[in-house]
């Protein structure tokens, strides 16, 4: 059986330590900062630290994001194929980025060139650390000797069990980026109201829960996360943040008041999700209850 090469992309949120530990590769997207195109690095090592990056946004500059470019996809896929590896690309939610569709077009071409290889471009209908945890689970299954098809079957059957609960400082960025849908009342001036943003089955961000006050919103995120985990003792919870460690720690403490997860990982949200959701964003991800919306 061929080796399976697992890719995520710049919305998969796993930093180098996780990628190294689980042998996960990633296809970088790009962002334009100060009129420069730079790699949307999950490690914030392209001349902008985590803080620098969001400080640019806090100062009112807009950061534009781009999907994974075709040459990057093709080059990375070829490298794997040349080595005789199969490819499992766990992409950013197709509702938020066209990367998965671009990859599928390229895969169609490459499947002809490499008829013996399997290339799967998977739309997980969610992004962030959920996408990352899927890659970790895929990696573990790979280590258990599961086939690429078996792994894909599992992912596809369980993708809606990955939950997201996000709070943003302002809906401004998501609206600007066109990456949230909600009732019309949400788009107004909400001030004290902090919406909680979930990922629905279509893979869209949906702001459908409203809470008054930032801390109350974080507490509610913690409650929803533990509730969605079902058996929280056996679950790992991911907390991503866009330069808001304080907020992430607050959510962690709130979670610990409600239960003892197997692990809680706090880490930065990647530059793509961060640029779309804005500085201050805190997002939890947990595998558990199936999303029904």
């Amino acid at each position, binding site marked *: 059986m061929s080796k399976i090469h697992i890719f995520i992309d710049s919305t998969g949120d796993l930093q180098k330590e996780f990628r190294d530990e689980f042998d996960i590769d990633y296809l970088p997207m790009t962002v334009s900062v100060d009129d420069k195109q730079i790699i949307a690095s999950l490690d914030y090592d392209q001349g902008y630290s985590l803080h620098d990056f969001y400080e640019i946004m806090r100062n009112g500059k807009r950061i534009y994001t781009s999907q994974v470019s075709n040459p990057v996809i093709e080059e990375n896929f070829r490298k794997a194929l040349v080595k005789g590896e199969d490819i499992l690309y766990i992409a950013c939610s197709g509702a938020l980025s066209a990367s998965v569709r671009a990859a599928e077009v390229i895969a169609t071409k490459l499947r002809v060139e490499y008829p013996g290889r399997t290339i799967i471009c998977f739309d997980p209908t969610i992004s962030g650390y959920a996408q990352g945890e899927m890659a970790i689970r895929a990696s573990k299954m790979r280590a258990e000797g599961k086939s690429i098809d078996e792994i894909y079957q599992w992912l596809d059957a369980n993708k809606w069990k990955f939950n997201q609960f996000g709070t943003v400082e302002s809906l401004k960025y998501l609206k600007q980026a066109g990456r949230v849908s909600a*009732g*019309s*009342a949400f788009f107004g001036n*909400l*001030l*004290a109201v902090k919406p909680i943003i979930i990922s629905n089955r279509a893979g869209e961000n949906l702001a459908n829960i409203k809470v*008054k*006050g930032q801390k109350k919103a974080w507490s509610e995120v913690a409650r929803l996360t533990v509730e969605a985990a079902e058996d929280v003792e056996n679950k790992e919870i991911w907390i991503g943040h866009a330069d808001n460690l304080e907020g992430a720690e607050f959510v962690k403490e709130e979670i610990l008041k409600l239960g003892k997860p197997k692990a809680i990982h706090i880490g930065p949200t990647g530059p793509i999700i961060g640029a779309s959701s804005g500085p201050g964003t805190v997002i939890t991800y947990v595998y558990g209850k199936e999303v029904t919306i």
Partner: protein
Amino acid sequence: MNTLSPASFVSMLETGFRAIKLDRERINDLNVFPVPDGDTGTNMTATFNGGISALKSAKEESISSLASALANGMLFGARGNSGVILSQFFSGFAKGLEGKKSATPADFVAALQEGKLKAYKAVVKPVEGTMLTVIREAAEAAKDHAEFEDFESLFAFVVPVMAKSLDNTPNLLAVLKEAGVIDSGGAGILSIFNGFRKFFLGEDVEDSVFNGPTPAVSTQGDIPFDEDSVLDYGYCTEFILQLLKSLDGPKNFVLQDMIDYLSTIGDSIVAVQNGTIVKVHVHTKRPGKAIAYAQKFGEFVTFKMENMSIQHQEVLLKELQQSGPRKRFAIISVAPSEAIAALFQDMGVAYCVNGGQTMNPSAADFTTAFEAVNADHIIVFPNNSNVILTAEQAASLYRDSQVTIIHSKSPLEAYSAIPMVDFDNMTLEENLTTIQEAIDGLTACEVCPAVHDSSNNGIEIKGGDYMGIASGKLLASEPTMIEAVRKMFAGIEDIDEKSVITVFYGLDATDKDKEAFRNFLSKEYPDLELMEIEGMQTVYPLLIALE
């Protein structure tokens, strides 16, 4: 005091002005008609303000010149019928003091007669049971009384006569009796004279802020007067005419002739003349005739004309999506300022009814709003307990929509509840429950200066104190704004459960006040998240939502 010097005369007038300034809200409350143009207290205060301002540039050499300057200032500053009558009274009064350097009580009594005569002449059909009666009875009683030794005894006599006359107005005018009030214009003149009395007694009258009438009636945009309308009320036409030698006036102009002519084309006529200046108010369906008549004698200094059908029905700041396709849901909110109306509309309110402090909207304003939003279900947020009944009445009169009136007593309830509404995903009942939950979780606080001494909830209120009112209950009355907030917050039992505080800064909140408020919060309530909004509302320097 038995001789009134020019300086004392000015002080007397200023004391009278302070008195009506303090009283104007109470006088506003005496309105018989629930239409927003009936703010007698505000109109009379604004009118008097015009006279007082004119005094400032007048030479203090004689009572005669001061009285004349006062009268002139009031004539130009007059607002509403009560203001015009007031200005005309003082115009006659000034005539009575003509040539006087200073005045004795007897001069004053004589001037009152002139004032009375001119006030009566100002109105085409004098109605008893109004301020005219109060003026007349006081002037006549003073004339019949033995000569007064000093001004103290003159006012000790005149003010109670006026008060008695005022109390009797409901017996003379059925509309007052029906409404259960005394005449507001009479209350205004009594207030002024009472201020004069206090001046002679050496009592101080508290000064207060007068923001002037709120220019909030909008006749712009879509109005309830369209191609199917009929002109019911005519035009409220007001102008100040300068008689010109180059034309037919001042030589040939006869005020009574003009009044007689105007009577043939309209009613509610008030016409006064002061030298070569003529001020005219008339309700007519043919304003062109009034203009043509006036222009034979002079040209206009100012000219104002409003369609009264619109004046009567329309009190709104802005309209969003009027008509358009019928919607399932719409929210209507009463907003006390344009800034708050803009915020509400930003939050998804379909229509804001103007509800400035002196502008309680009428039921017709609401039915106009109901029509404009064109929705199956309408949720209305009043901004004042005075507005709830009006809105409910409007709802009972309106057949085309299901209307729910939220019992909101400040704009804060609307601010708190509206963002929680979700018409896309929830039923009407669920939304109403959500609204109620938001309101239940809200403590609405109002901070405003007291305009006079009072007592409430066991708390003594001094005029000028800041009152802290939480959920309609007075919790504090303190000399400073921050002290009032501190004491009020201390009295809110569940304040520790609150997490967000939103403050609407009023027009009277200074940068210093805002800074002090922020400092107070960060020191004493550091866990509250602060949201600040420039509400630009009048009356309340701070409106605070604790959630």
